Structures are given as structure tokens and as C-alpha cells.
């Protein structure tokens, strides 16, 4: 069953990743994102139904959930005709990470959960959702800097590219972070409660996540504008990448 859902999802994401390369095929890419996300949603539902607990407790499993959250956030905030280049930035990595999740066993059904209580499930789910939001905000910030660079270069094709306006990118990146920060806050609180229950000690990932929270908290409070806001969002995303890719293994272990 999961096989029958994984392949449509990865094919649809792959199609979207390629189809976003051209404005003409961009509408087909949008359908690829929608259909792929629906297939992945069904895959996650099957995983949830066949698991005896939280099915995404492994590193690869959490990557599967993370991809679903990123694509979901993109569907809500960015899946519009003028956001083709955002799709081009989001969908190829999403498709690759989804494949990596499969290779790591994160898309299988019937896995045993490592998590014993609700706090842990909430902690992982909320932190991943926040990280997905920060990822999308970073893509929006990257697109902002690229478009600003083209405007500064006075590129003659700036209108032909049909990019979203700078102000819209800035506003969407801020909103995405403003929505993601409370999720990270709740996720951290759940993690702290679980840590106190287990009388565990703070590891490098937890310290880094706290730093990420501080950085994005500062962003929401200070609300920088223009390219400063974009650099801020990208700086925060570097911490997210380190947390997701470099340190997550030790935390999950």
C-alpha cells in the first residue's frame, strides 16, 4: 500500500521540480505539487494507521514528515503563478529529501515508535512544522534577494520573469516566520517537559534549537525590512539546516 502511494508522490514532486523550470509548464507543476502532496498525505495516513505509536520517530521518518510540512506550507503560501521560481527553489530539494527519506526507511509502514509519550510526539511534530515554515521563509528570502539583485542590476527582463513583487515576498516571509515561531515555542516547551520527566541533560541540538528560537524571536520583535530581513531569515535557516542535517542523528539516537 505504501509503495502504491510513495511512487505517485515522488513522481508528482519530480514532475513539479522539472515543470517549474519553464513558465509554460508551470501550471502542470502546480498540479504536480497538489497531487504529490495528496499522495504523500495518504502515505502518512497509512503509516499512522499501521504504526503502534508516532511513526516518524526515526531520522528518515522525520525527514518524510518534514518534506510533507514544507510542501504543505508552500501550497498555502506560495503556490501561485507568480511564484514559479519559489517552486523551483522548493520542489527539487523536496523531491530529493523525500527520496532520501525512503532510502533511510522513513516511508515504510508498520515501524515501531521510539517515542513513549504524547509530549515527545508534540515536541517533534511542532518543531518539524516550525522548521518547515522557516525553510519556506528562507526560500522566500532567497527569492527576495535574487529579485532585488536583478532590480539593482536593472535587468531588462525583470517584468518578463513575472516575479512576485518585492514587498509581497518580504511580507510573506515575515508572516511565515511569525506563524512558525509559536509552533517552535510550543515544541520546545513540550521538549523541556519531556526532558524534565526523563531527567535528561541538554544536548547540542537542543542548544542550537534554543538559539534558533532566540534568533527568530529577535526577528519578529525587531521586524527588520528589505534585504536585512532577508539576510536574517537566511541566517536563521542556516541554523535549521545544521539542526536538521548535522545534529539530528545524535538527538534521535
Amino acid at each position: 500500500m505504501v509503495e502504491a502511494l510513495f511512487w505517485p508522490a515522488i513522481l508528482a514532486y519530480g514532475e513539479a521540480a522539472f515543470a517549474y523550470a519553464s513558465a509554460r509548464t508551470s501550471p502542470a507543476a502546480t498540479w504536480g505539487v497538489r497531487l504529490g502532496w495528496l499522495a504523500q498525505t495518504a502515505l502518512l495516513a497509512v503509516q499512522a494507521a499501521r504504526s503502534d505509536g508516532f511513526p516518524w520517530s526515526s531520522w528518515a521518518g522525520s525527514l518524510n514528515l518534514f518534506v510533507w510540512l514544507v510542501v504543505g506550507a508552500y501550497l498555502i503560501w506560495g503556490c501561485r503563478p507568480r511564484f514559479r521560481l519559489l517552486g523551483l527553489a522548493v520542489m527539487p530539494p523536496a523531491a530529493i529529501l523525500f527520496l532520501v527519506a525512503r532510502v533511510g526507511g522513513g516511508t515504510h509502514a508498520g515501524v515501531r515508535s521510539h517515542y513513549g509519550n504524547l509530549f515527545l510526539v508534540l515536541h517533534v511534530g511542532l518543531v518539524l512544522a516550525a522548521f518547515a515554515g522557516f525553510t519556506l521563509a528562507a526560500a522566500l528570502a532567497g527569492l527576495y534577494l535574487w529579485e532585488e539583485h536583478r532590480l539593482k542590476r536593472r535587468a531588462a527582463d525583470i517584468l518578463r520573469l513575472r516575479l512576485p513583487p518585492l514587498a509581497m515576498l518580504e511580507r510573506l516571509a515575515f508572516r511565515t516566520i511569525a506563524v512558525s515561531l509559536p509552533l517552535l515555542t510550543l515544541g520546545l516547551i513540550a521538549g523541556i517537559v519531556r526532558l524534565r520527566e526523563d531527567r535528561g541533560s541538554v544536548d547540542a541540538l537542543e542548544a542550537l534549537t534554543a538559539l534558533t528560537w532566540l534568533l527568530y524571536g529577535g526577528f519578529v520583535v525587531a521586524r527588520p525590512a528589505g534585504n536585512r530581513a532577508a539576510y536574517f531569515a537566511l541566517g536563521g535557516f542556516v541554523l535549521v539546516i545544521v539542526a536538521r542535517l548535522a545534529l539530528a542523528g545524535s538527538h534521535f539516537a
Partner: protein
Amino acid sequence: MTLSLVGLSHHVAPVELRERVTLDIEASAALAAALGDAVCLSTCNRTELYLATGDAAPAVKALEALAGRGLGTVLYRLHDDAAALHLFRVAAGLDSLVPGEGEILGQVRAAYEAASTGPLLDRVFRQALGVGKRVRTETAIGESPASVSSAAAALAAQVFGDLAGRRVLLVGAGRSGELAAANLASRGATIAYVANRTVETARSLAERFGGSAIALGDLGAHLTDVDVVVSSTSSPEPVLLASDVPARRRSPLFLIDIAVPRDLDPAIHQLDGCFLYDIDDLEAVVAETLAGRRAEAARAEELVAEEAERFRSWQAALDVVPAIASLRARAEEIRSAELAKVDGRVSDDERRTLESVTAQILNKLLHLPTVRMKEAAIGADGAAYADAVRHLFGLEEER
């Protein structure tokens, strides 16, 4: 029914000739009415007469009378699907000086609505309006700006998005600056200030836009209060230096310099949050977008050809419709006559059964020939099939 077109346009006729045959909407409607079932489309770039007849001689005479001379090779004459294709290209803006310009669609609509049309012209003009709308919806041909002033407004929208509530400072009262300001205002921006060497001129322009007049020397003080600056003075020296521009912390400043020599210090563009475009930059953007329009035009041509093919099928089917109608009428006549022969010899129930059965037989028998004739009409054989049916079933006298 034959569709004919005679006309002249900017492709073949110089302005000296076009201006003599250009008519306003009332005169166009009067000419169309005088020609019978006709539509007159007259704009600054074309005057065309669409007729529901194969005889275009009266229309040619009318145009030559307006021109005051023979039009000979300047006039084009098209018929049926070629005329429909031409009209569809016109409505889509593909025959315009600037490909994809939107004004022509409104002019086609006005010409159609001003005329009193029969079924052929009604169909072809309604389809043309649909084609024009479809091309603008399904391609990006009409989206990009085609002039320096509209490019300036489009670039401002690229920075700010919705221009509603954005404040504009207009420096100088030149015609090109005014046009750019009008374009920005049409997108919702507010012309907050007008600065000019002559304060009276500034005041009169500011009143027109609902803004305030300020002195040229006060530019720097008002820059914190605006989002867009449009400058088009004839000053030989820059009117705004980079050192006069306050740092932008919250919102960008977009500056448009249409003046030659330039009014705005080019170093302003290097400031954080400032985007300065001069006349060369704007012209480069326009050239690029026009190239884009031409690329989109290829897609639009495909849509137009598809619609022209639909029209051709519809028009071809018209050739066989009378034959089909005659055939069905003759069959129904025979059926009714045969049923009349059994009147009084069968009960009411039996009569109803007979009527139902004979009607079904007739429908089933005529269904396939009807479909085949319509199919043949789309090809080149429609008229031959119609003639054959008329001959075989003795329908000649009904032609």
C-alpha cells in the same frame, strides 16, 4: 452564406490615406446600415467592412468615396474563413502595431454593438470577442508594458506590489513625467507632491492630481514621505543628489528619471533600498517586454487558428442544414400521409403505437445520413453531399 471583408490598415495604407477613411462610431454604424448586413470597424489604424454577402463591390465603392480616390492594391479583400481569421487576429491584438494591445478588443465590441447584424456576422463577431478575451487570459501577450510611462508604473508595482496608498513625488511638469504619474495614479498611487521651477505650473498640475505643490529646493525634505519619485525637468544640472536622500529603513524608494540630461544623481541607485531607473533603463525594459509579446504572439496565433477552424466547421455546416431540414420534412410528410390512410381502421391505442413506431423508424433511418452530411460539410464535400441528397430524395423543387 458568404462572409466578406474589405478594408485597409496601417500595414498597407499610409496615415494620409487612413485618416480620410477613418469614421467615428456613429458614422461607422451609418455606413454599415447603408450596406445592409454589415459591420464597420474603424480605428486610427484600420477601416474594415465585414459583410454577410459575397458581393463586396458596394463596400469598395463606399470606401473609395470616403478616400476620394481609387484604392486599388491598398485595399484587401478576404472571404469566409480567411476573413474570420483576420477578424480574430484583429480582436486578439495580433494585427496591431503593438502586438497584444488591449484597446482594439473594445473597438471591435463597439463596432459590433453599433451594427444591426444577421446570424453570420453575429456569430463571427461574438466568437471574435471570445477569441480576444481568451488570448488575453491564456497568454501573457497583454500583460507587459508597451511604453516608457507604463514600464515605469509596472516597475514600481514590481517593487511595491499593489500601488494603492503609495505616494508619488512628481518633479517637473513635463509631458512624459505627467504621463508616468498618470500611469501610477491609474494603478492606485497617490500623486502627493508636484515640484517645479515655476510654482504656478506645479500648483496647477498638483490640483489636477489632488496633490500639493512644493518648491524644487524642498525635495530632500519630502523624500521620507514618498515611495516613488518621477522626475522630468529640463534642468541642465541634477535636481537631486545622493547626499540629499535620507536613509531608507522601512520601505524602498523607487525613482524614475525620464529627463535628458538626467535629473537624479546616478549614485542614488547605489543607496540601500533605492532603485533608480533612467530613460535608457526604461526603454530597455520596454524593448524586452515587446520581444516577450512577440514570443507570446506565437501562442496566441495557435489559439486564433483553432478558433478560425471552429468557425469554418460552423459555416460549412450551414451549407447542408437546408438539405437536412428538407429531407426530414419530406420524410415526415410521407409518414403523416401513410398514417392518414389507416385513420378509422385502428383504435386510438393502436394509432398511438403506430405513430411512435414510425417516428422511431424515421429517426433511426435519418440519424446516420444527418451525421454524415454534417461531417462531410466540415470537409470539402458538403455541397456535393447536399446536392446528392436533394437529387436522390426529389428535394430539388424545395431549394
